[in-house]
Every structure is written in structure tokens, then in C-alpha cells.
């Protein structure tokens, strides 16, 4: 700690604080332009100049100068004001006066500073920039005439996103920010750079000329896509979500978002949203009244054997009501396809006695060893990926990825990919456990099941597994050593619909490793289980799992046999996203009645007998629980189109029709009821959920038990080509394929091939490729890049109509034939 005086005020700050940060602490405002809280100090603009007694004779930039003991700082004097004004004049020499037509007007730092310093004229003259705008991509417009060269875009893309799109080129007056070869922007389109730009040089194109910032109603809510649970501030006007506003004040994401969160909102405004209930009459879906549709659903629920398949983008309150609907109607209930969610939950219960992540996301930022399983997290939970990136880049964490493909983070200095053949992650995890036990580094105090586990690992000696999976022995033993030596380690596992295979095994294997390396019992971080959908964790917490009833796959099987009177699908499109499309189709055809509750007429809804129009996340009030157990408020920014109702209202009406006595006044009341029933949520008050949410169980959830359970991995699939599926960065589930933003980047399914395979097949990007397996073929465009090893092809699982689930039936990897044409 150091003590210093700022404008006569005494402050004590940490040794690493800069003068600017110290001043902030003391409540003194210093103007800044190139400084940004989450970026490293840069010192490009000189707007923050201050006087320091000990360094008389020149002015010192407050944002880059460390505070030292005894400093006496003056932040405002005539001289400082004069110099700052001069700095502004310099900045304005070649800045175009675009304010009237610039979308940043009204929230532009340059505008504000110009106003504050009363820069009404300029003593200097220069040529105004006249550079062409970069509009080659559909999402971000770059107008370098407005750039003030603060470097925030360059830094955020490098420091936080680890993409590195931009750099400064040329010198002197010619200096500008450019992309590689000055060809225009083509990147991940996370939009971090545009959220950082203090001026109107980088702007969101979908929002171009739509409104002024002061006209927007801002509503803080939670992103409806993945389990990361980022805060999104909806900018609403004319009952539409016009844009997502930058907000780094609340939530866990520090203002960071991915392309889905930032540009994927537009589906809520689409014209083809369902607006009235539909009922099938004479083979046609026709518009019907809510009463008619709900009567049909409730009588089917009451009288017959029903199965309910829910999505995981419903709020906790809605899930709770749904559970009551299922209970009242004695229907089977499960969420999302496959056995994935169930498998993960069961696996974790058996080993650690819990079913969630043990730590919070911010704890990973200063972790020293991170192992991520199956994906490098960048595709599934991009913003958590940015946290990992910071841990590695800024804090020197060792990053291990156990996956069948290399990812973006492979490039990081301290990252290493344990590249395994597809589907063999469990084998490698077992081998790491074996190495730990063998070298005596394993932590076995208070752990039960050690001996049985040890003997079961006989088949998983590192050398043997290495031969099987292709991961070098040294990499396995090194990973074991690093994990055992970790002071604050984290193991990350993503799960979800496209990762159905071996979910229970993987959860157990990861938990075993967390136990043996001592991670599970650490005070912070530990094991992270990250669900695919916005409220996957909530669905698990509330027990939207089969219990004694039928699970998702069993429901489908029963329906196919004609044993199910009602299949009620909520917020899911099984025809597109569930593995084994043929089985789903048989179930839809076999069920006596199919009800779909959704935003759009999805391929599944087209086949339904009753379709109920539901509300999107932007129209709902309630809570989501993210992958770190954080319960956060979802708030409505707009109203639903037409007669569409929220799932909340639909379930309450159904409960009434089923004869249950319910009279909830709103989400508060339901939350109170669910908190009373659910131990983990007990004591949490809906109205007290603040801007940072509430992490149930506390920042670190101690495992209830530490039991090692032996699991076996798979045998490698022998085939020239194997197909794996999963999430593509730009999309999440099937919903994002209806949003303009993500679509603008990837608008159709593709098959990704490694360079070597592509060369052998003579295929280039955009050529047509045929993938054949299980007696079915799909034809897709090729995408060639460096991620995949030889023999592995990847197809994302988001797009309707690709027929991916004809060949993917839930296995970890599918032997396929790949041919050109």
C-alpha cells in the first residue's frame, strides 16, 4: 500500500495502482480518453495529464504513472486546463465534424471532452482525413476518419479477445488503424472493439441510423443464448430491441460479449414470430383462440400418458411451474435431448455430491493451471473463454486443452492441446489420474474408493492410452504434474445437446481428476460444468430431469411405439437439434398428439397438432442461473407480438385448467415458492438479486463428498474419416440461426476439414462435399482450415434442414465416408 495526496485529499491505494486509479478512489475525476478499465495502461492521448509535486517541470499522464509513496498530485490548475485544451485541439485538427450523422453522437467521449474543455475554435489547421469507410462485413462499420488513435480497439482485440485483428500502420499524420493488409475487417465479430471505441470510428451496422442513444430505453437483462450468463443491456425503442448497449458496470462479463450476445438479438423482432395459437384441423394448422388451444393441451395432459420435453432457456420460475404442470398431470418431464444433462448430473452426484460448478468465473482469471475438456471453450462459452485468455496471457496460467481439435487458444504462449482421437477424452483423463497415482502426487486424504479406482485404472496406463489416443505420454504425465502442483487450478467441461455421448463418464472422469489433483477441495475455482443454454444450470437445480418418469430418449421411444398420448415440446426443436433425427421423426409421427410451444414455426412445430406462441428472453421477467450458479434477473424490454404469451402465463393457465390451486402474483411469488422447496435457493430474495446476481452456495461450493468412481472410455473408431459435431462460435442452439447477426457471418451449415484431408480429397473451401454414414448422405459446403487433425471432420449442429442428425445419432464420433461433390 502507498499513501499519496491528490488535490489535498489523502488516499491509500495498492502498490499497483496508477495515479488515475488512486484519484478515482479519492473521488477525484480525471478526464481520460484512451484509458479503459479492463485494458492495460497505454498513454496514447495525453488528456489525463496532471501535475506531480515531485516531478515538477512537466505534466505527467495519470493513467500510466504508478502511484508512489508521498506523491502530491494536482489534477486541476490553469496550466493543466490549458494543456488539456491544447491536446483536444490537436485531436480535432484532422477529425471530421460528423457529429450530426455519427451514431456515436450523444455518448462520444471526444464530443464530451470538447464540450467540457470549451474547445470552440482551433488554433491549428490541418487536412481532414478522407479515408474510405470499411464496410466489407455486415456487422461492424469502420470509419477511420473519426478515429482518435487511442488504440483501445487494438488492445481489446489482442488482450481480451486474443484475435488480433488490428494494428497501427503508417507514421506521423498518416497513422491509422488497419486490419491485415488493410483489406477490411473479417474476424469473429464479437464487437468488443466497437464497445471500446470512445468515438464513432467503430459502429454496429445493424443499428446504423436507427436511433440516438438518449432515445433508447435501457433494460438490463441476461443474454438468452449460452450458460455464460452475460449481462446484456437491451436498447429498446418502438417495442423492438434496437441494439445491445455496452455495460461494464454490472454482471460477470465486464462488458464483454460474443457475437451471439451482441448481434444475435434480432430474432426477437422478426416478422415471422408466432402470434396466435395454431391448431391442426383437417390436416392444416389454423389459427385458434388461446382457450381452444389450451383446452386441447390440458385435456390431453389430464387424460393420457404425457411426456414433456423442455428447453433450457426458460426462466427458473417457468421451469418451476412446468414441473408443477408435470406433477399435476403425472407426466414425464425431461429437458433437452440425449442423456447429456442427466448424465452430467448423475456423474457429479456420485463423485462430488453436487451437480454444478464449484467456483465462479472471476476466480479463473487468476488460476495458475486450467484444463479444458472437449472444446477450448471459445466456441461454446466465448466470454468465459476471454477470462481463460486473460488468465493465460496476463497472469501466466498454464492452459491445457483436451480435445479432438485445436482451437484458437492453441496459439497462446502457455497453451498446449492434448490432441486426442475423437471420443477418447475419458481415456486420457483416466490416464492423467493413473499418472497422478503412479507418481504419488495424487491427493487422497478424505477420498474414498481409491483402491478400487486404482485397480480399475490398470487399462489406462499413460503409455497404453497414448498409443490409443495419440496424446504423447510426456504430455499426459506433464499434465498430471501441473494439475497436482496447481495452487488454484480449474477444470472446465462444456456439455449440451451436441455433446451427448459419454456425458456421465466424462463428468465422472473430470470429477475424479479434480479430486485426485486436489482441485475439488481447493478454496477457490475447481471444477466448472458449463451448460449449453442460458438456464441449463437452473434446469438442473430445479430438477427438470426424468426422476421416476421417462427421460428424453425414452419418451421419444415410447412415442414412436404409440405409447404416448401427448408429446409436449417447449422451446426446443428436436427435429433439428436432437441426435438421431429418424427417431425423433418416428416419435413425432407416433405420438397421438404433439404440442409445440415456441417462438417460430420450427420444423418440429410444423408437424405439431397444437402450436402455442411463446415469449422470447427479451419479453420475460424472472431469473436465469448461469454456469457458475449465479442467479441473475431477466427483465422485459419489449412486449410479445400479437397474442404470444410468456411460458409463465401459459403454464399458469394450464395449471388452472388441470385443477391445481395456484394464484401466483408474479415471478417474485414463484421464486419464493421455489426457494422454499429447493434448499440451494433457500433464503434468496427475488427483489434482493442485485446487479451482480446471487451465487447460490457461495463463491466456492465445497464438494459434499469425494468418491472416486471408475469409468471406462471408448475404443477408437477405426475409419478413414470420423465426424464430430458441436457448437460453432457464431451460433448457439437453433435460435441463433434466425438472428441476422450470427447469420451474417455463417448462414448455412458446412463441413470443416483439415488442410491435409482437403488436399487429399482435392477440396477447397466452398466446394461441395458428400458425407455418408448410417445409410444416409448429406451434402454440405466445405470449409478448410487448420483446426482439425487428419481424419476428423466437423459439422456444426445448429442448422435446420442439413440432415446432420440423420448421420449423427448421439455417438461421440461417427465413422463417415467423405467424398468430393
Amino acid at each position, binding site marked *: 500500500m502507498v499513501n499519496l495526496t491528490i488535490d489535498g485529499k489523502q488516499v491509500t491505494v495498492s502498490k499497483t495502482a496508477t495515479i488515475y486509479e488512486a484519484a478515482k478512489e479519492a473521488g477525484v475525476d480525471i478526464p481520460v480518453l484512451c484509458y479503459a478499465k479492463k485494458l492495460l495502461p497505454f498513454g496514447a492521448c495525453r488528456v489525463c495529464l496532471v501535475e506531480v509535486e515531485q516531478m515538477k517541470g512537466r505534466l505527467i499522464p495519470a493513467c500510466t504513472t504508478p502511484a508512489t509513496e508521498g506523491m502530491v498530485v494536482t489534477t486541476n490548475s490553469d496550466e493543466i486546463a490549458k494543456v488539456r485544451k491544447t491536446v483536444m485541439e490537436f485531436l480535432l485538427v484532422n477529425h471530421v465534424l460528423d*457529429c*450530426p450523422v455519427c451514431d456515436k453522437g450523444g455518448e462520444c467521449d471526444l464530443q464530451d471532452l470538447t464540450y467540457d474543455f470549451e474547445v470552440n475554435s482551433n488554433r491549428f489547421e490541418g487536412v481532414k482525413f478522407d479515408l474510405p469507410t470499411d464496410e466489407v462485413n455486415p456487422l461492424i462499420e469502420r470509419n477511420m476518419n473519426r478515429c482518435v488513435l487511442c488504440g483501445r480497439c487494438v488492445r481489446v482485440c489482442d488482450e481480451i479477445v486474443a484475435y488480433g485483428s488490428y494494428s497501427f500502420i503508417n507514421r506521423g499524420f498518416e497513422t491509422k488503424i488497419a486490419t491485415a493488409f488493410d483489406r477490411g475487417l473479417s474476424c469473429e465479430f464479437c464487437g468488443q472493439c466497437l464497445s471500446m471505441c470512445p468515438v464513432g470510428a467503430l459502429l454496429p451496422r445493424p443499428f446504423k441510423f436507427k436511433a*440516438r442513444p438518449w432515445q433508447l430505453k435501457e433494460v438490463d437483462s441476461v443474454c438468452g443464448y449460452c450458460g455464460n450468463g452475460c449481462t446484456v443491456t437491451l436498447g429498446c425503442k418502438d417495442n423492438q430491441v434496437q441494439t445491445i448497449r455496452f455495460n461494464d458496470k454490472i454482471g460477470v462479463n465486464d462488458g464483454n460479449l460474443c457475437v451471439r450476445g451482441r448481434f444475435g438479438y434480432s430474432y426477437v423482432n422478426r416478422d415471422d414470430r408466432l402470434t396466435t395459437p395454431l391448431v391442426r384441423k383437417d390436416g392444416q394448422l389454423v389459427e385458434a383462440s388461446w382457450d381452444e388451444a389450451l383446452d386441447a393441451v390440458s385435456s390431453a395432459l389430464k387424460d393420457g400418458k404425457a411426456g414433456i420435453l423442455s428447453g433450457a432457456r426458460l426462466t427458473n420460475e417457468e421451469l418451476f411451474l412446468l414441473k408443477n404442470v408435470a406433477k399435476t398431470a403425472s407426466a414425464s418431464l425431461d429437458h433437452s435431448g440425449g442423456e447429456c444433462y442427466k448424465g452430467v448430473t448423475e456423474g457429479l452426484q456420485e463423485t462430488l455430491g453436487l451437480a454444478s460448478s464449484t467456483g465462479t468465473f472471476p476466480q479463473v482469471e487468476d488460476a495458475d493451471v486450467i484444463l479444458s475438456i472437449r472444446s477450448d471453450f471459445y466456441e461454446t462459452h466465448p466470454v468465459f473463454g476471454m477470462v481463460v485468455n486473460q488468465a493465460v496471457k496476463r497472469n501466466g496460467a498454464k492452459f491445457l486443452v483436451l480435445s479432438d481439435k485445436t482451437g484458437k487458444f492453441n496459439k497462446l504462449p502457455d497453451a498446449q492441446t492434448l490432441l486426442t482421437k475423437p471420443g477418447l477424452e475419458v481415456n486420457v483423463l483416466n490416464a492423467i489420474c493413473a499418472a497422478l497415482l503412479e507418481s504419488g502426487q495424487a491427493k487422497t486424504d478424505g477420498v474414498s474408493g481409491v483402491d478400487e479406482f486404482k485397480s480399475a485404472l490398470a487399462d489406462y496406463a499413460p503409455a497404453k492410452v497414448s498409443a490409443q489416443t495419440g496424446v504423447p505420454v510426456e504430455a499426459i504425465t506433464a499434465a498430471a504434474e501441473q494439475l497436482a502442483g496447481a495452487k488454484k487450478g480449474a477444470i472446465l467441461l462444456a456439455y449440451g445437446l451436441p455433446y451427448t455421448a459419454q456425458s456421465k463418464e466424462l463428468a465422472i472422469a473430470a470429477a475424479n481428476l479434480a479430486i485426485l489433483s486436489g482441485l475439488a477441495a481447493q478454496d477457490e475455482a475447481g471444477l466448472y460444468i458449463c451448460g449449453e443454454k442460458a438456464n441449463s444450470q437452473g434446469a438442473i437445480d430445479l430438477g427438470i430431469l426424468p426422476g421416476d418418469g421417462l427421460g428424453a430418449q425414452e419418451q421419444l421411444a415410447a412415442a414412436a411405439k404409440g405409447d404416448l398420448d401427448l408429446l409436449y415440446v417447449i422451446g426446443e426443436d428436436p427435429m433439428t437439434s436432437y441426435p438421431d433425427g429418424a427417431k425423433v421423426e418416428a416419435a413425432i409421427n407416433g405420438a397421438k398428439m404433439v404440442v409445440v410451444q415456441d417462438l417460430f414455426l420450427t420444423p418440429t412445430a410444423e408437424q405439431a397438432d397444437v402450436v402455442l406462441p411463446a415469449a422470447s428472453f427479451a419479453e420475460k421477467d424472472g431469473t436465469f442461473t448461469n454456469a457458475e450458479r449465479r442467479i441473475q434477473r431477466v427483465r422485459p424490454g419489449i412486449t410479445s407480438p400479437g397474442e404470444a404469451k410468456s411460458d409463465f402465463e401459459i403454464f399458469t393457465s394450464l395449471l388452472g385448467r388441470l385443477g391445481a390451486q395456484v394464484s401466483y402474483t408474479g415471478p417474485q411469488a414463484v421464486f419464493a415458492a421455489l426457494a422454499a422447496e429447493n434448499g440451494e435457493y433457500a433464503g434468496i430474495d427475488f427483489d434482493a438479486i442485485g446487479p451482480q446476481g446471487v451465487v447460490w452456495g457461495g463463491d466456492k461450493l465445497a464438494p459434499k463428498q469425494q468418491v472416486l468412481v471408475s469409468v471406462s472410455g471408448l475404443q477408437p473408431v477405426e475409419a478413414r474419416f470420423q465426424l464430430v459435431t458441436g457448437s460453432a462460435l457464431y451460433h448457439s442452439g437453433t435460435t441463433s440461426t434466425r438472428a441476422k447477426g450470427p447469420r451474417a457471418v455463417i448462414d448455412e451449415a458446412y463441413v470443416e476439414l483439415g488442410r491435409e484431408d482437403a488436399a487429399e480429397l482435392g477440396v477447397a473451401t466452398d466446394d461441395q462435399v458428400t458425407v455418408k454414414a448410417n445409410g444416409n448422405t448429406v451434402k454440405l459446403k466445405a470449409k478448410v482450415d487448420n483446426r482439425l487433425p487428419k481424419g476428423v471432420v466437423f459439422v456444426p449442429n445448429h442448422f435446420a434442414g442439413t440432415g446432420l442428425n440423420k448421420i449423427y445419432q448421439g455417438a461421440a464420433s461417427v465413422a463417415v465416408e467423405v467424398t468430393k461433390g
Partner: protein
Amino acid sequence: MFKEFIQGLSITLKHLSPKHITTVQYPRVRLQVSDRFRGLHRLVPTQDREKCVACYLCPTVCPAKCITVESAENEKGEKYPKVYQIDMLRCIFCGYCVEACPVEAIEMSGQYELANYKREQFIFDKKRLLETK
């Protein structure tokens, strides 16, 4: 007393002479209003479009909240007002809109004869405002 009475009456009589009449025979005769008169608004045209760039400053400053602007992008990629409309029934002729405009795209003319038969006729859209003399 009689003297004062005559004095007063003489002023009245003086004003009866044609030289001193201040009443104008409206509508046959109309006064020339001052250049600074704040009458009906005019949107200033340029060669091929309106000068207004839809910056939203006038609707923001308008105390009567009677200006509606909707911006959009034209074929040339420029920002222009797809909708520009003033509700003259609510306008208080304060002239703030003129003062706020950064591109001098809106002016106030000398027109003050704004009476009309229907409420809708008081809504001046872009076309009418561009045609204001």
C-alpha cells in the same frame, strides 16, 4: 376641464385622418413581417434532397415534443429523414428547433395563416415543410 377634453378629442380626430391609420384591412392588405418572425417552419432543400440529416436534435430540444423524425440510410449511404413531421397544433413557435439545428436545415418562415378545418391538416409532413415558401 373643457380645454382638456378638446385636447384629448383632437388626438382621436388626428388618428381618424388617413395619414394616421394603423389598422390594416386584412385579408385584403397584409403586413410585411419582420425577418425574425417565427411562423410556419420550412425545411431547406438542397439540389436533390432535404438539407436535414436526421440528427434528432430538433425533436430532442422541442419543448412541445411536436417534431417526429425517423432516420434512415439512402442509396448513397447518407443519413436522411425518412419521416419529418411537425404537429402545428402543439408547436409553440419558440424557434428552438431552428437554433438547435447543426446544419441550418430548418427555418421559420413569415407564414402565420395556419388556420384549417381538420386536425390532420395541421400535421406538416416533410413534403409540405419543404414546400413552405
